[in-house]
């Protein structure tokens, strides 16, 4: 990992840069109100996909904590949730700005009570509560187990929030009641940048996730070696 990591990092950063460049150079259909902000599609949607993938990874490692207790799965579960939240917040920000300059241009509205947006915000709150819970339990093993239980439990409600419910109510988003599905309204040309964007953002997630996992491991190792160091000095 250490040997090939710098190359991977460079490759991923180059890929995403290429995606961004492509996003702005590729000609897009001109839609009223949206105009060039339609390019936001390449960023807003992949960020949410990445968040969902991150939440799934977090739940997967939570199950791992329950099956095989240990620090590794707990660390990965928490880190995945953290990174997923970052992407969720970014997705929220891009969504809000997008709405502000297009459908809410000229008005003072920032939060449009769009159902899907509210559901997404709620799922962010669910994972924020996960971190509150982590801070509330002192015993390391118990904390890992209890938080893993909450993680899995919370994850069972996420499909409701992000997938089933938004389709039932009317909303600004595609796929909601009254709106055709996402694939129906995207110009196939846009898929040329869209799919690489999804891949790029998931790779970015992997990069950030990996960094923080290594950071967590190193901090734990630093604690251990510093106590060894102190003990060896005392002897």
């Amino acid at each position: 990992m250490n040997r090939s990591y710098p190359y991977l990092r460079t490759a991923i950063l180059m890929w995403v840069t290429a995606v961004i460049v492509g996003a702005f150079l590729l000609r897009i259909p001109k839609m009223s109100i949206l105009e060039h902000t339609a390019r936001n599609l390449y960023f807003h949607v992949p960020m949410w996909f990445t968040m969902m993938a991150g939440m799934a990874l977090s739940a997967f490692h939570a199950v791992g904590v329950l099956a095989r207790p240990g620090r590794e799965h707990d660390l990965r579960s928490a880190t995945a949730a953290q990174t997923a939240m970052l992407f969720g917040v970014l997705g929220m920000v891009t969504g809000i700005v997008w709405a502000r300059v297009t459908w809410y241009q000229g008005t003072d509205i920032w939060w449009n009570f769009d159902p899907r947006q509210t559901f997404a915000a709620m799922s962010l709150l669910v994972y924020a509560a996960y971190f509150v819970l982590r801070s509330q339990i002192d015993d390391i093993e118990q904390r890992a187990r209890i938080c893993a239980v909450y993680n899995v439990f919370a994850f069972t409600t996420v499909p409701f929030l992000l997938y089933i419910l938004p389709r039932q109510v009317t909303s600004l988003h595609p796929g909601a009641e009254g709106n055709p599905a996402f694939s129906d309204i995207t110009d196939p040309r846009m898929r040329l940048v869209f799919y690489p964007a999804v891949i790029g953002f998931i790779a970015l997630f992997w990069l950030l996730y990996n960094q923080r996992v290594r950071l967590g491991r190193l901090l734990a190792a630093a604690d251990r070696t510093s106590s060894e160091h102190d003990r060896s000095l005392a002897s």
Partner: protein
Amino acid sequence: MSVVREALVVLSKDLRLEWRTRAAISALILFVLSTVFLIVYSVAGEDLQPRTDAAMLWVVVVFSAAIGMGRSFVTEEEQQTATLLRLHASPGAVYTGKLLFNFLLLVTVSVLAVASFVFLLNVDVASGGLMIATVVLGALALAGATTLLSAIVSKTRAGAAVLPILLLPLLLPLLGAAVLATTAAIDGSAWSEASDHLVTLAAFAGVTIAASLLLFDQVWND
């Protein structure tokens, strides 16, 4: 003893304790009444839309649950009856017993809330049957979500105080469906229109209860 009998034993123990002290139920009743009076005062006689009434009803119920339900496992830990329970009943039975107890509490709370809304806020419920179905399914879904979480918070430092933080974000699907179904009940719509929402409530209850049954063991046994 079979799991069902064990669960019923746990339930009857909790009911008996509750009947003696009436601690949880009185707290819940007072909370609901105080909140409804606050609402009555704030609304000051204005006519509200059915949607608003339904929304406030369920907000009151959900907050009562979040505040009043936290103690169901905490008291076990505090009074150190938890070990006894662990010895005598399987985790599934303990969970089911607690679930049923919470369900009964929540049905009482919801019925009280609906009654106070009808009397104090002059809400006219056109379809009584639909309202009852919504209350029952909503209480079941709420109990499903709350029971496991109250077991989780019994292990934390802050205890029951952190239950609202954990519970409220998870209840959004429940709230949406319950409010829509209640609106339909107040409006007097046909069952077919509200069936979508009732199904969502039932599905939410099913998912949370199933997940809780699988996960409860991990929380209950140290």
